[in-house]
């Protein structure tokens, strides 16, 4: 999937939340979105998923206007926050719903969920617990699992590593690396964890104050460069 942002601007009152003259993500590219708090990462992702209407500009997926064409939804797996969960459902009910939106049969769902057993062992989870009764970490795991198990062509995740325990972070990183290696899959992962994001993503876009400051291919020095950048950053500007 090719995703393009063209002259996107989103302004709240006096504050520019996002100002992206041109940006694109090619088929098969895996991108890490980094930036301080309030840099515009979530606004970027919400516009990309058509949850927020930009004041100016357009988003195109495979050349089609995002707001006019809904076919992308059947090829996209996303998880930004708890609003992506349907909290009065149990885990199996929720996953069944998500699977149905991708046209999966119960058998297919079961097979695909098995691939993620190391990340969220469903056999050991209380099947009768409603999502709203889960801890923040477990709820996040369910959300991420729902975004990934359907094998989408385009994956959008916001802060996937936050609130996860260390073993789960490591397993998730492995899963994302292996999924990123599959041809034709594009991914955008927003994260404050520079180590994880540089491990998974081949390209990094750095946002600050709603504007793209850097858009670089990953190299040996990327992690060190990013650390240097944020170490010298005036954190008060972000708030």
């Amino acid at each position, binding site marked *: 999937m090719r995703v393009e942002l063209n002259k996107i601007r989103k302004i709240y009152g006096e504050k520019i939340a996002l100002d992206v003259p041109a940006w694109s993500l090619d088929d098969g590219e895996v991108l890490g979105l980094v930036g301080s708090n309030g840099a515009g990462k979530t606004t970027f992702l919400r516009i990309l998923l058509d*949850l927020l209407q930009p004041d100016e500009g357009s988003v195109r997926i495979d050349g089609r206007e995002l707001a006019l064409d809904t076919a992308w939804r059947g090829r996209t797996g996303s998880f930004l926050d708890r609003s992506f*969960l349907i909290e009065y459902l149990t885990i199996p009910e929720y996953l069944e*719903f998500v699977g149905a*939106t991708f046209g999966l049969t119960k058998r297919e769902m079961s097979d695909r969920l098995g691939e993620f057993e190391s990340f969220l062992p469903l056999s050991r989870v209380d099947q009768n617990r*409603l999502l709203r009764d889960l801890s923040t970490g477990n709820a996040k795991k369910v959300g991420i699992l729902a975004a990934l198990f359907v094998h989408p062509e385009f994956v959008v995740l916001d802060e996937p590593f936050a609130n996860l325990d260390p073993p789960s972070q490591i397993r998730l990183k492995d899963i994302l690396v292996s999924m990123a290696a599959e041809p034709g899959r594009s991914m955008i992962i927003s994260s404050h964890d520079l180590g994880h994001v540089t491990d998974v993503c081949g390209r990094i876009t750095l946002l600050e104050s709603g504007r793209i400051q850097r858009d670089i291919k990953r190299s040996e020095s990327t992690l060190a460069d990013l650390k240097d950048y944020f170490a010298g950053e005036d954190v008060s500007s972000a708030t």
Partner: protein
Amino acid sequence: MLARNQFRVSLRQMQFKQGWFMRIVIAVMMVYSAFILLTLGFFFDRFSIQLWPNTTPVDVVNRSLLAGFVSLFFIRFLFQKTPRMKITPYLHLPLQRRDLILFFQSASLMSIHNFYPLLFFIPFWMRYVAAEGPLSGHLMWISAVCLLIVASHFANLLLRSTLRHRSGLFYIWLSLFITLAFIDETAGIGLQQRISEFLFGSILSGDFTSLALLASFMGFVVVASTVSLFRSVKGMGEASAPEQSLVRSFDVPEEWGVLGQLIRMELLLMWRNRRPRHYLFVSLLFSTMYLIFMLSTGGSISAAAFAALLGLFASGGFVLNYGQLMFGWDSTHYPAMVTRNVPFHEMVRAKLIVLQLSCLLLFLASLPLFIWFRPDLVPLHFAFLFYNAGVTTILILELATRNSQRIDIARSGGFFNYEGFSAKHWLWFIPTALPPVLFMQVLSGSPRVALVSLAGLGLVSILFSRGWTRYFARGLHHRKHSMLEGFSSRES
């Protein structure tokens, strides 16, 4: 410090919570009802002489006092809030819980529900009661009224707490009360009136025992409600085990695809969340228990307009109550719906099917009552089944698809919580209920024509369900971003 904080909270709620329109409507209603109460209090004899020419105003009021307080209690139950949530922000502070509870219990007495009845009772007492019996009796009578107001206040808090923690017990009590009231009313016993007359008549003649009885009742509800609040606060913050009855699920055939999943989700939403579940129970109660009252009143349902309202609510009660907040119920997880491959027309179709099915189920639940009490109204019940399933559901969905008020469904508890409602929800009742009522009234001379027309209109609309679905789906697509914005706003 607590008093100052609560004063600020009340002031800010008054300033920011309601829009201008609602503030004006509420102010007009308050002034109007105050005027009515004062007029009734001062000039009660002019009204009572018309209805009960051989009874003194004091006797009329004495025998109606208990029933009056039950009615006031019902209004209180619909609108008055409990202090439980107000305590939460203070729980982490180094304050004694007992002090907090006593403060908020006392502060909760500063409610309009406690002062408004006095607008009637004080002038009535000054003008009529003071003219009868000894001075001690007058003072005891007004004290008894005040005791009853306070008892009613704390009984409401107690009942709401029971509803929250032991809803099964609440429904048993409610059913028992309705059944007893029904028997008392229909069997012509009039027990409630006799008790009321005896109690307040005795108090007026200076009988201290009757007053002590009322005071004991008040003491009991005050203590019970305080203990209940204490228990409720004690349990706050503790992880509660999920209610096993709520996690019962059911499968839908795989071939039904996304539509089947959406219908299942709609039903689970209703069952697993307190507020939608209450709407379901209220609709069921209306279509069964309350309908018994309405139908058993014999010939009084002669007016065509009133019969139309009965038909509208008997099978369409759920649509009118629950339906208008559809999509609002989904507000907390609306992003989960619109970022997934869930076509809007499937979303609408699922909701339409659930609403139409509710009409059929309520129709079946209330049909035996119509057959038993008023077989002459069975054709009306049939006609309104089609009208509600075809027209009322569409009118309600028109409102629901324009709703962008957030409802925090997991936290939105209790009866008659108005989160998610706006002025348009109240006003929408006019185009929803008025046309069939007026139509029935205009054609009251030929009711068959009216009923066939209404049923025919409903049937045609049902046949056009696919077209309606497309229409609403287009609307949802156009309003997607404004709905998402509204649903994400916590200040709705």
